């Protein structure tokens, strides 16, 4: 029975009963513990049954709780005898039966785990979230729209749902973050960033465009990290601009020429207008140049308009021709000049080099010249001067020697110092290198150790999880092994019982055959002796003795049988006594009488209270 008790206690601990370590069998259960265990089991089987888990001091309430638990057990389908006494004055066997019934009914942990672990995949989680949100929305009451700002409804748990309200389209604007410089020097760019660049939140034209702009910028940075369009550099800009202007000018010239071939009056296009503006200034002096022509014009006022126009056109063409030729001349000259510049600038470095050479030669010549002049100055009194020079040379050599000795004096200790310092330095350097190496090794070791630590921790967690998973299985397998052993034992015992039964049967058979043989031999002996007894006195006595022997023997046999029956009966009685003792009727009786006494007291006190109350009234 120990095994069963252990299983029961383990199951009770799993559902949260506070059972102390030293309690190992149901015999040690106190009534409080029994009630707690039973009510927790019922709570686990039928959530919400609300049976108190602790016993109150009042006796009547205790009985009521016991009765409720018993009623619930019978409602669940317990067929055995159960009542308040089963829990309050428990006897081991009944209690074991009830608790086993309840524990069998407990919901399996495995199923509960499965339900919790099911939504592990992302899709399932998403589905759960969707349904939770919809449930929340379905359960929340209707609220007028003016009670929400921007259509946001806040729930109690801090979440929100958007129901209508204003929404801004996704419009993003380019933001300048200060990371890329656009064609200017880093110095300039940095200064711009420090001084003038507004914050990204101030760069957008409306506050609600900030979030889309941020998202766009970030996404673009992820998708095309280095493909952002580089802004054209300043030089390129200038070049393209000049190209554009040139082409514009060419077009202008050609269209002007075309326009001139057509009528003057149709000056509609921009180019033509420009052309007129451009050439008007050049035309005006040209017109004044031939006054004779003007007079001719006045004279020929009567001439037809056509002719005049024709002449005008001719004149203009002439002027254009002239201008063109002038232009060509100028261009040629320009080209010539540019060519000259080029050749000149090619020559320039050479010329500069030549000049340098000449200047150097000049300086040398000047130095020579001064020396010569000095020598020439000294020539008139050469001897004294030579003496002087000798003296000077000697003094200089002396000075040089003294300086050298001084230098030696200074040099020796300095050299020594220098050597020492170098030695020191080299030793220091080597030491520092060693220390650096040591530091590096230590750092490596630290990182290695932290890595190892992390791994170990992970392993520990993993193993702990596994252990938690496995421990149950171990106990389960142990129990199954134990059960298998018990079954083996039982079958062995059954075999033995069968063997014994067979033996007894054989003995029975033998006894029967022996009894039969005895009967037959007795009847034969009886007959033989009876026949002789009629004639012989001895035989008559022998017959009498035989009869008494037979009756005595049968009596003996009967006595033996009776003893056997008595022994069996006494064994039965002993068993009964044992079972009765197990029920511990005496102890229970004492408890019941104590409880009865307490109840009587309670009743008496209540009656006294009632009396005083009625007396007061």
């Amino acid at each position: 029975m120990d095994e069963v008790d252990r299983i029961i206690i383990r199951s009770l601990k799993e559902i949260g009963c506070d059972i102390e370590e030293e309690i190992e069998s149901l015999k040690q259960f106190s009534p409080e513990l029994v009630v707690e265990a039973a009510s927790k089991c019922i709570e686990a089987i039928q959530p919400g049954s609300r049976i108190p888990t602790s016993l109150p001091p009042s006796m009547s309430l205790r009985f009521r709780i016991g009765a409720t638990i018993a009623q619930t057990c019978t409602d669940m389908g317990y067929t055995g005898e159960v009542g308040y006494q089963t829990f309050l004055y428990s006897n081991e066997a009944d209690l074991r039966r009830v608790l086993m019934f309840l524990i069998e009914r407990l919901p399996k942990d495995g199923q509960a785990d499965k339900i919790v672990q099911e939504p592990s995949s992302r899709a399932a989680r998403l589905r759960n979230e969707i349904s939770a949100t919809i449930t929340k929305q379905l359960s929340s009451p209707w609220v007028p729209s003016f009670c929400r700002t921007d259509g946001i409804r806040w729930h109690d748990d801090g979440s929100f749902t958007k129901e209508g309200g204003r929404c801004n389209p996704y419009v993003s604007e380019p933001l300048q973050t200060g990371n890329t410089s656009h064609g200017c020097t880093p110095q300039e760019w940095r200064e711009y960033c420090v001084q003038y660049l507004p914050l990204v939140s101030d760069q957008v034209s409306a506050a609600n465009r900030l979030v889309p702009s941020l998202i766009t910028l970030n996404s673009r940075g992820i998708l095309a990290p280095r493909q952002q369009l580089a802004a054209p550099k300043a030089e390129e800009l200038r070049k393209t601009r000049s190209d554009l202007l040139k082409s514009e000018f060419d077009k202008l010239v050609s269209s002007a020429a075309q326009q001139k071939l057509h009528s003057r009056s149709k000056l509609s296009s921009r180019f033509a207008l420009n052309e007129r503006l451009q050439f008007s200034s050049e035309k005006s002096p040209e017109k004044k140049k031939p006054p004779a022509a003007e007079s001719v014009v006045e004279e020929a006022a009567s001439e037809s308009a056509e002719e005049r126009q024709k002449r005008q056109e001719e004149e203009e063409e002439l002027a254009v021709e002239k201008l063109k030729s002038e232009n060509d001349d100028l261009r040629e000259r320009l080209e010539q000049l540019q060519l000259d510049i080029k050749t000149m600038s090619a020559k320039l470095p050479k010329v500069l080099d030549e000049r340098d050479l000449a200047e150097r030669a000049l300086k040398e010549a000047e130095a020579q010249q001064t020396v010569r002049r000095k020598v020439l100055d000294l020539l008139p009194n050469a001897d004294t001067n030579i003496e002087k020079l000798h003296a000077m040379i000697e003094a200089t050599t002396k000075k040089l020697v003294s300086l050298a000795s001084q230098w030696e004096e200074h040099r020796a200790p300095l050299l020594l110092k220098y050597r020492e310092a170098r030695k020191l330095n080299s030793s220091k350097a080597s030491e520092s290198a060693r220390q650096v190496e040591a530091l590096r090794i230590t750092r490596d070791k630290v990182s290695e150790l932290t890595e190892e630590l992390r791994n170990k921790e992970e392993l520990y967690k993993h193993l702990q999880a596994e252990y938690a998973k496995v421990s149950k299985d171990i106990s389960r397998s142990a129990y199954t092994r134990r059960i298998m052993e018990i079954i083996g034992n039982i079958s062995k015992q059954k075999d033995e019982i069968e063997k014994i039964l067979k033996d007894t049967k054989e003995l029975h058979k033998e006894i029967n055959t022996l009894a039969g043989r005895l009967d037959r031999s007795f009847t034969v002996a009886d007959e033989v002796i009876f026949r002789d007894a009629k004639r012989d006195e001895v035989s008559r006595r022998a017959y009498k003795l035989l009869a008494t022997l037979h009756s005595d023997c049968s009596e003996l046999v009967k006595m033996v049988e009776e003893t056997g029956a008595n022994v069996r009966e006494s064994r039965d009685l002993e068993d009964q006594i044992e079972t009765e003792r197990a029920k511990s009727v005496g102890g229970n009786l004492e408890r019941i009488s104590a409880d009865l006494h307490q109840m009587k007291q309670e009743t008496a006190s209540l009656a006294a209270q009632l009396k005083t109350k009625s007396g007061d009234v």
Partner: protein
Amino acid sequence: METRLCADVLSGLKRLGNSTLVNEDLFSKLLVCGVNTITQSNSQSLNFLSLATGSSKGDVMKEAHFSLLALLVEAARMDVSSDSLQSFLESKVNWPANRCKKLTTAFNEALPHIQVSLANVGFHPPHVVDVKWSLLHNIKSSSSEHAANTIVAVNFKTEGMTNSSEDDVQFMCTLPELQDLVSKLKEALRQMERVAQMSHP
């Protein structure tokens, strides 16, 4: 988390975490200002503006500010947990622990509000927020003296149209048609309930 931020943002975050470039006081201010900017409660951004333009490290600060905004928006978009955010900041951009903590607490507080400003971007079909109705009894017409039919005028007030909020849905219908509509709505409601109960059978 790391793959959802571009290189500019990551470098800006590294600068923001560097205590020699951005000191502790400035970091707190940047954080408060950034959260306020995203959630569009512009109470303290003015305070910050003067601070940013006056300093010689203005460019660093502007970049850090941008990176912080981008981080908040992206983290709220992905709905990351505070633990993973903290581990990202500690391991990938090497922030000191106290800054990580500050940012995650601020982020946790502001997360619903940031998500609200994300939810306000974009467009969705108009949302019925209110309904008005009236019964019109037609007693007699020009053709018959006793015409007894009833018409219901329904006006659904909607919100969330992109152009104007005044686009209400108005229609007239007879009683059977209204019943038809109501039964359809009930059917839709039942469908929603079925979806809601799918995960709790």
